[in-house]
């Protein structure tokens, strides 16, 4: 019976192609925009998630608040303090350094290239994995002895020396006013997601290299900020909890309230992105809802026309034994099918559009099947809701009058 009704509904739709299409337009636009925006939102969310994953989701920076006026020497960090934190939060605090970096220009016979030198501890590779292609990574002894050794990113090495294997090469740069000669002890390669490569595209002029963080503790080993990674295996709640505890502990050791210290965590930044995307989605969702409402009214209108046009058919069906319910279901199926077909067209158009956009930016587009199913289901629901009144009208027809209708 239901399949029968659906076949009939599709036949009716085919018989009036243009009218059906115009009727479905509201639904097509409504569902299409929902799918497009959800997909764009999901894609952006994935993009940011990937970027933060590359950067490290458990990463944080902690420093005395810029709003604190009576800053004391003790508000800064010493190297010893940073070491003790690691011991105090075993299994939770995976990595600590001063979060310092240095930029400078390296000159060789071949090239002159701007570099960004990141000051790291020897176990930075555990929280920011890279592949060491030539030579070695920085060792604990390099860090402790403040040796001017450097691990360079492969493409930068190739640009600078004409070969990726730059192990054994030296260069001189200015470190806080002292010209220092660095040895290249290793070359690494970093895997990047499609998103990050896209984001880095404009930034490729600057070379990347890693040096011991102990070289960047100027002046007087007084360190402005604590840069850390919590254990990467932590879930969202554990991480949030740890960030708070760590902030409170550090502030406490310095005789400060927790809120006097400023915590910048990747987690909270990500939350902001999510909030922003959520806001955009809600706004577009509202527009889509209006569009679906208009589409639904269009469907109601055309169903009323259809019920009038087919008065005799209704009369005949009732004479042949159709009950009120049979007629109701027939017309409800028709409006639901009309609306659902609109939904399917909308989904198809939106998917094509978003995929084309994704292809243009060489981005992998996220389209959730659950969202697609929900959208089509919802459009069918819109059809049923706005079909109730016309179907009721059809079902309540008196067969004698309906049979006489011209």
């Amino acid at each position, binding site marked *: *019976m239901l399949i*029968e009704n659906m076949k*009939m509904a599709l*036949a*009716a739709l085919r*018989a009036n192609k243009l009218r059906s299409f115009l009727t479905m337009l509201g639904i097509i636009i409504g569902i299409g925009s929902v799918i497009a925006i959800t997909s764009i939102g999901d894609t952006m969310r994935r993009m940011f998630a990937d970027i933060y994953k590359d950067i490290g989701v458990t990463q944080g920076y902690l420093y005395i608040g810029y709003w604190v006026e009576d800053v004391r020497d003790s508000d800064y960090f010493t190297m010893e303090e940073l070491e003790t934190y690691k011991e105090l939060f075993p299994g939770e605090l995976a990595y600590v350094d001063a979060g310092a970096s240095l930029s400078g220009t390296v000159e060789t016979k071949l090239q002159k290239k701007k570099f960004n030198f990141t000051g790291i501890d020897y176990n930075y590779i555990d929280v920011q994995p890279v592949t060491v292609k030539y030579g070695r990574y920085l060792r604990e002894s390099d860090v402790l002895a403040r040796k001017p050794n450097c691990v360079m990113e492969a493409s930068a090495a190739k640009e600078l020396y004409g070969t990726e294997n730059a192990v054994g090469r030296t260069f001189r740069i200015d470190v806080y006013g002292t010209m220092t000669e660095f040895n290249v002890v290793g070359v690494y390669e970093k895997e990047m997601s499609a998103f990050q490569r896209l984001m880095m595209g404009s930034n490729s002029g600057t070379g990347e290299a890693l040096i011991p963080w102990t070289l960047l503790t100027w002046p007087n080993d007084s360190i402005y900020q604590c840069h850390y990674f919590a254990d990467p295996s932590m879930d969202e709640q554990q991480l949030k909890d740890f960030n708070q505890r760590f902030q409170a502990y550090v502030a406490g050791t310095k005789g400060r309230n927790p809120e006097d210290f400023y915590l910048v965590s990747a987690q909270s930044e990500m939350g902001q992105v999510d909030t922003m995307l959520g806001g955009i989605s809600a706004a577009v969702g509202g527009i889509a809802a209006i569009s679906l409402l208009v589409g639904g009214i269009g469907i109601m209108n055309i169903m009323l026309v259809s019920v009038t046009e087919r008065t*005799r*058919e209704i*009369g*005949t*069906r*009732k*004479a*042949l*034994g*159709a*009950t*009120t*319910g*049979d007629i109701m279901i027939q017309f409800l199926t028709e409006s639901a099918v009309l609306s659902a077909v609109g939904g399917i067209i909308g989904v198809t158009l939106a998917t094509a559009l978003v995929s084309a956009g994704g292809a243009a930016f060489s981005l992998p587009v996220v389209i959730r099947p659950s969202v697609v199913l929900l959208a089509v289901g919802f459009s069918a629901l819109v059809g049923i809701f706005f079909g109730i009144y016309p179907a009721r009208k059809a079902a309540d027809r008196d*067969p*004698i009058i309906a*049979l006489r209708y011209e």
Partner: protein
Amino acid sequence: MIRLPGKRKETAVPADTGGRESEELIRLENLVKIYDTGALRVLGLNKINLTIRRGEFVAIMGHSGSGKSTLMNILGCLDRPTLGQYYLEGQDVAGLKPDELSAIRNRKIGFVFQSFNLISRMSVEKNVEVPMTYARVKPAERKRRALRLLEQVGLLSRVSHEPNELSGGQRQRVAIARALANDPPLLLADEPTGNLDSQASVEIMELFARLHESGVTVVVVTHEDNIAAYTHRIITFQDGRILSDRQNEHPTPVSSQQGLLHRLT
């Protein structure tokens, strides 16, 4: 196609009524229908008493306004009488609710209309299936029965056509096949030849005659004497009352065409 043979045989095939002829199919007792149009009350039917037995072939005649259409609607369970009883196969259907009446129409009454009332955009076969759909017959069985009925009315070659591809006579034959879909005890035809030319009219009336011969109870509403002449009993209405009710001793003879409708039901 049912073709008219060159010469007609005078003797019709004897009706195989299986001894059910004496059984009552319809009994109306003091049936009254009043139309209340607010300011005016019109008496549509005035105390009608009428019995129709199984296997009868009846014509209901009368001018417009005589009450024959009102009776037709009540017999067809499309309308309810204001007063009185209507027994169909012994069941009082006068007081049933609309959906209960739908079920009665579906199982017990086969309708044939003046303007065919086939559903457009649906194949001939699907049209015949409609009453079975409402009787919740399984699709395979529906198809089997529809094809058998279409074979019996001589339209097996047209099963996948749509109604607008058929002639008037063919459409009415589809409608008759549809009316027989649920094997109803009563076939009710309202001016079945009103929209047909004379040749198609003869075809349709001969089809009814053969259905009657095979045991189906047929009631035809008409205002044409030559149509009523095919039937065996003619009831004439005037002003909401039965004016006359007589047996037709010499119904128009039917060509004895074999192969069609020789085994209905």
